[in-house]
C-alpha cells in the first residue's frame, strides 16, 4: 500500500498539511462570522437610532435665561445671552483658544470658533420665515455634556462666569468654548433650524 498523502522523500508540504491549514482557516473565518453578531448586538438598536427632533419654544426666554432640553436623549443648553455676554464672547482672539474649531453641526468642520459661528446665526431658517437678527446672535444652543467625561456643567460659575464643570474642573466661556481644564473640545452645537419666528427645531 502506498500512502499517497505524504511523500517522505520530499519532506515538504503534504496534502494533509494543506487540509489542516484550510480547515483551520475556514474555522477561524466561521468563528469570526459567528462572533460578529454577538458584538454588534451591543450597538444602538434600530429604535434607538430612529432619532427624533426636539422643538424649542423661544418666546419663553428673556435675555439671561437658560433652559435645558433633551435632544437625542442627551441634555442640551438653550441660552438667550445678554448683550454683555455676547460682547465678551466676541471679544476673544480665536487663536488663543484651546480648541479653535467651531464644533458646529450646521457648519463645515473647519469653521473657526468665533462667537458668530457658535451662536444660532449658523442655524438654517425655514423658507419664508424671517428671524430677528438680535435673537439669532444672542441665542446659543450647545450640548450640556462636558467634552471631558460627560458631566453637566453648572451655569453661572467658573473663571468666565458661564459654565463650570464640577467633575474635574473645566471652565467654559459664554460661547460654550473650553477655556481652562481637562476638557479637550468646545461644547458641540447640534443641527438646528428656525421653523418659525419663535420656534427652533433641533435635529
Amino acid at each position, binding site marked *: 500500500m502506498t500512502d499517497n498523502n505524504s511523500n517522505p522523500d520530499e519532506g515538504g508540504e503534504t496534502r494533509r498539511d494543506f487540509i489542516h491549514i484550510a480547515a483551520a482557516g475556514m474555522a477561524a473565518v466561521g468563528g469570526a462570522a459567528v462572533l460578529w453578531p454577538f458584538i454588534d448586538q451591543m450597538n444602538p438598536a434600530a429604535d434607538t437610532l430612529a432619532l427624533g427632533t426636539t422643538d424649542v419654544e423661544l418666546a419663553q426666554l428673556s435675555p439671561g435665561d437658560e433652559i435645558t432640553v433633551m435632544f437625542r*436623549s442627551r441634555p442640551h443648553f438653550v441660552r438667550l445671552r445678554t448683550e454683555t455676554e455676547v460682547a465678551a464672547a466676541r471679544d476673544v482672539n480665536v487663536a488663543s483658544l484651546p480648541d479653535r474649531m467651531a464644533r458646529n453641526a450646521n457648519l463645515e468642520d473647519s469653521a473657526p470658533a468665533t462667537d458668530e459661528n457658535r451662536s444660532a446665526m449658523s442655524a438654517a431658517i425655514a423658507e419664508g420665515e424671517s428671524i430677528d437678527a438680535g435673537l439669532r446672535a444672542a441665542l446659543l444652543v450647545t450640548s450640556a455634556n462636558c467634552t471631558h467625561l*460627560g458631566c*453637566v456643567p453648572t451655569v453661572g460659575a467658573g473663571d468666565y462666569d458661564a459654565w463650570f464643570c464640577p467633575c474635574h474642573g473645566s471652565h467654559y466661556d459664554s460661547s460654550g468654548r473650553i477655556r481652562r481644564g481637562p476638557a479637550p473640545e468646545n461644547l458641540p452645537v447640534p443641527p438646528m433650524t428656525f421653523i418659525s419666528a419663535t420656534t427652533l427645531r433641533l435635529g
Partner: protein
Amino acid sequence: MSGNSTYEPKTAFTRWLDTRLPIVRLASDSFIDFPTPRNLNYWYTFGGILTVCLMVQIITGIVLAMHYVPNIDYAFASVQRIDRDVNFGWLIRSIHAVGASMFFLAVYMHIFRGLYYGSYKAPREILWILGVVIYLLMMAAAFLGYVLPWGQMSFWGAMVITNLFGALPLVGEPVTQWLWGGFTVGNETLNRFFSLHYLIPFLIAGVVGLHVWALHVPGNNNPTGISVKTSADTLPFHPYYTVKDGFAIVVFLLIFAGFVFYAPDVLGHADNYIEANALVTPAMIVPEWYLLPFYAILRAVPDKLGGVILMFAAIGVLFVLPWLDTSKVRSMRYRPMARWFFGFFVVACLGLGWAGAELPDTKVPVLGAIGVDFLLLGRVLTLYYFAYFLVILPVLGFVEKPTARPASIEDAVLHGDKPAKAGSAGAAPVAQPAE
C-alpha cells in the same frame, strides 16, 4: 505540591470513588495535608478571607437579583423596595454593599503583603499575574454593580467611566456608543451592566481556581522569602492553617458585621439615594473609596487621553512587576532600603486616595499654607507611584546590600529571625540562590 499524594482512602466507598473521581484526594492534598511553611503570619490569612468574601457576594447577589429590576424606570424604586419591604432585604443588601468594600479592603491587604514579602518573584510570576487579573475583574464588577441602584452617583459614575473610552483616538465614539447601546448612558446600558455584573463573579471564581492551582505548584511564599527545603520547614495545612485562617475570618466578619449593622452607608455616598437625573450632575462626583487612588491619577494629567492612559498604566505596571524588581532577595525583611521605599509607597497610595476624594483646587491641610493643593499632591504621589515600580525597584536590586538571612524557615522559627549562626560574624548575607 503535586505528585506526592499522601491520601489513603479508608472506606470501601472512598476507595471506589478514588479510582473514578479522585476528588477527595484532591481536597485532601490541597487543603488538609498540603505542606505549608510553618512561619506564616496573619498577613497570610487574607487569601482565605477573600474566598469568604467572594462567596458572600455571590450568595447575596443571587438573592438580590430575585428582587431587583434592571430598568431605568424601576431600578431605583426596586432597590428602595428591597431596603424597606422585602423580608430581610435591608440586611442582604447591606451585606452585599458593605461586602464590596470589605472585599477590596482584604484584597489590598493581600496585595501589599505580596509586595512586601516579594510573593510575585520567581517561581510565582503566573500566580501574581492571575491575582492582578482577579483584581481587575473585581474593579469591573464593583463599577458595574455600583451603577445598578440607579442613583445620581450610579448614573454619573457610569457616564464618566464609559466616557473614558471616548478618549481613544478614532474608535473613541463608536466604542462608547457600543458600550452604551445608545447615545448616552440609558436603559440599554443598565440592562447590559446588570447582565455583566452577574457574570463577572463567576469569572472571578474561575480565575481564583487557577490562582490556587498556581499557588499549589511552588507552595506558599513566607515572611522570610526563603524557599521550603525540608519537611521540617512545613506543617500540614489542616489543622494548623485552617484554624489560623478560621480565627482571622471570625475577626474579619466581626468588623464586617459592625459596618453592616451600625454603619451600612458610611462607605457609600449620600447622593446615591437621589434617583439618577440626566440633567443635573452632583456638585462633587467621586468613585467609591477603593478606586479613589486611580481617580487621583486620572486627574493628575491635564490631558484627557493622557490621564486615561496613565490610569490604566497604574494597573498595567503590576502585570510586569515580577520582571521590574531585580533584587535576588524576596522578602523585604532583609532589604533595608526597599522596606523604606515600600513604606512610602503605602503612604503614597493612601495619599492618592485622599487626593482623589477632594476637589483638585482645594488646599491640602497644613501644606496648603505653601500653596499645595490636592492636584499638586496627586501629581507628586502619582510620580512616586510609577517611580517605585519603574525606577526604584529595578535600581535597588543592584545598589542595595541585603542583610543576612536565616539558613532555613525552620532556623528562622527556632532561633528567631536572625542570621544562621550569630557566631559566624562579619555577616555577609547568606549566599542563597533566589530560587
